[in-house]
């Protein structure tokens, strides 16, 4: 975990694009919020690996959001139940259900659909907020942050050693 955090900080302080980090957060969030063993998560994993998305940010976001997902499960279930029960959507669900492909993606499961809908709805917000935070951090906070005594103290411990090792 320390290694993962160190890698993330390195990415934060490196020349990695702010969008690369923001998208990593979004992908990690979707994968963390939705049940793990679903086909759409394979697609997300493929995107995260194939494109130059920051993997440390992706993994960290996935780990954190998996924890939050446990708290949000009842909400995901309610949202998914409401959508799947909605009368006007029944023809759509019926046609999707008759297709083997859509059956395999398991969108007829309340938590899967609810969590995916919520995370997709939240994705643009998280992307923009992440981009702004990373940008602001690099412009204004990074130098000030490094001068903090507590940071100086941290640099003296094992975590800093791992971080330095990574830097090579």
């Amino acid at each position, binding site marked *: 975990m320390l290694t993962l955090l160190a890698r993330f900080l390195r990415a934060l302080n490196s020349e990695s694009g702010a969008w690369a980090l923001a998208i990593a957060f979004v992908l990690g969030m979707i994968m963390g919020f939705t049940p793990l063993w679903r086909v759409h998560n394979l697609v997300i994993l*493929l995107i995260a690996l*194939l494109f130059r998305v920051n993997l440390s940010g992706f993994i960290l976001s996935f780990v954190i959001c998996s924890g939050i997902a446990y708290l949000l499960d009842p909400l995901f279930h309610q949202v998914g139940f409401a959508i799947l029960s909605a009368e006007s959507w*029944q023809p759509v669900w019926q046609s999707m259900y*008759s297709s*083997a492909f859509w059956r395999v993606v398991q969108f*007829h499961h309340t938590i899967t659909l609810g969590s995916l809908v919520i995370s997709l709805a939240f994705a643009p917000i998280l992307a923009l907020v992440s981009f702004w935070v990373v940008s602001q951090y690099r412009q204004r906070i990074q130098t000030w942050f490094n001068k903090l005594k507590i940071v100086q103290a941290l640099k003296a411990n094992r975590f800093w050693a791992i971080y330095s090792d990574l830097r090579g």
Partner: protein
Amino acid sequence: MKQHTVRRSAFRWPGLAAFLAIVVLITAFSWLLLDSILKWSLERTIGTLNGAEVNIGRVEHQWVPLTIRVTDIQVTDPSQPDYNRVLIGDVSGALSWEQLLLGRVHFEEVVSTGIRVHSERQSPGEVYQLPEKSEVGDWFSDKAADLNLSLPSVDDAIARVDLHTPAAIESAKAAYETQQQRVTAVLEQLPSKETLASYEEELKALSEGEVKTPAQLQERKEHFAKLKERFAADKKALEEFKEVTSSAVAELKAEFEKVKAAPQHDLDRVGELMQLNSEGLTEITAVLFGEQARRWADYMLLAYEQLAPMLQKSADETAIKPPRGEGIWFSFTDADAPPDFLIKKARTEFAVGPTVLDVNWQNITHQHEQLGQPTVFSARGENNALWSLLQLNGELALTAEGFDGRQQWRVQGVNLAQTALSERSELAATLLSALLDSEGNIALRDGQFDGNAILRLADMAIEAHADNEWAQVIATALASLNRLDINADIKGALMNPDFSLRSDLDRQLGQALKTAALDAAGPKLDAFKQKLNAQSGGFLAEHQDQLGQWSQLLSDAEGREQRLQELLETQFKGQLEDKVKDKLKGLLGGNE
């Protein structure tokens, strides 16, 4: 110097290799651990449908043909977590690849062996969702627990009776006081015998004295008129007295009748209360044979009680409250699409004591309307250790309104031996041996049972012991039984049917128990009767004379009224006028 800016590609091609490696790893992992994954999935899915923990011993699969074998399935009973609702030794079935690729689970044939119902678990199973209604298995045992096998207490019965005798005496006393005041008041207004005698004398004097002049005649007439006015006033007083006294006598007589009847009424009430105390015992058939009947019903209604709830939950997403984080799987099949889940044929072997009952099934699904056919089941067994013949046929279909189905059965020569009917300290009864024949039919319409059955017990030998005279009546009746026909009615909701059992034993026992109760309570009841009679008799003896006096007064009053009436009707005026006329004639004739 020329600078070259190298734009990095948006793709990270080694990432693709990593992705493929991960997919291969996941596939290999799933392949290798498929049995464990299937085991876990089945435990969760069936557990959710069942509403309580499901344990599976082992799952094995085979790819060609696609076959799954599951052993040692324990399905916890949600209402009794210490017991399994069903225990299945082994289930194996061949899945259709074609349907599986379309997302449907279709088994061509399933064979299940070693099925037992209501078996004890090694440790209590976790309950996910409590059943809405308590299981009917407790129905008869609850009644047995409520059964009062102690001798009814006369003292308790007397204490509970709102005694009429003291109340009737109090009421009669109050009525007597009131009526006495009324009678005394009118009695004072009555003309005495002396008054009546003086009236007669006055009247005699008026009619017999010498009248010489019209002035004397006029004087007497006026005197007579005054007398008549007094007669009329006295007659009115007499009439009022008669009216008041008559009503007083009538009311007192009515009150006295109540006092006379009250002791017997109270005795009857005590008897009724003692009989009420034994009312539960008149359902002794249900209490003693109900548990056994229920166990048989468990087997007879197995298809409904075990399969139906799971099928219902499969069909209704909202019927299941999912465990946290589990969610619900919706089904959106068209009306004419094949069912999501279907077992075309199944053969199940139920272990019943030392023998095995084969039940054959067709079309097990929760989507009967899509399939267009009901689930059909039949069982047949002959000449084994437990019975000489068992035939059972039925069908079951889940519709939008609920379950529809029907079933009929015939069982002959079931050997019952060493079966405890009651293990209470007051009454211990054991069915040593008996032969049971049973036949019945049942219909299920919109989830409601309606059916009946007859259970014929023959060659019965019952051993019964009792520790009091009361329970001894039951013990004796049971021990003398050789055969017993029990009629059973089954009605009510699918998961909470109401069984009612009745037999001639109930009526016979009811009468015997009442007699026994009254015999046992004889001395106390006699003392109670004497006490009530003493209270009632004492009051009546004290007040009967007064009633007699009033009656006598009434009789006297009638006599006086009669005399007054005669006085009133006296033709006084005519007599005197005739005398005066004669007198005047004599005077006038002498002068002519």
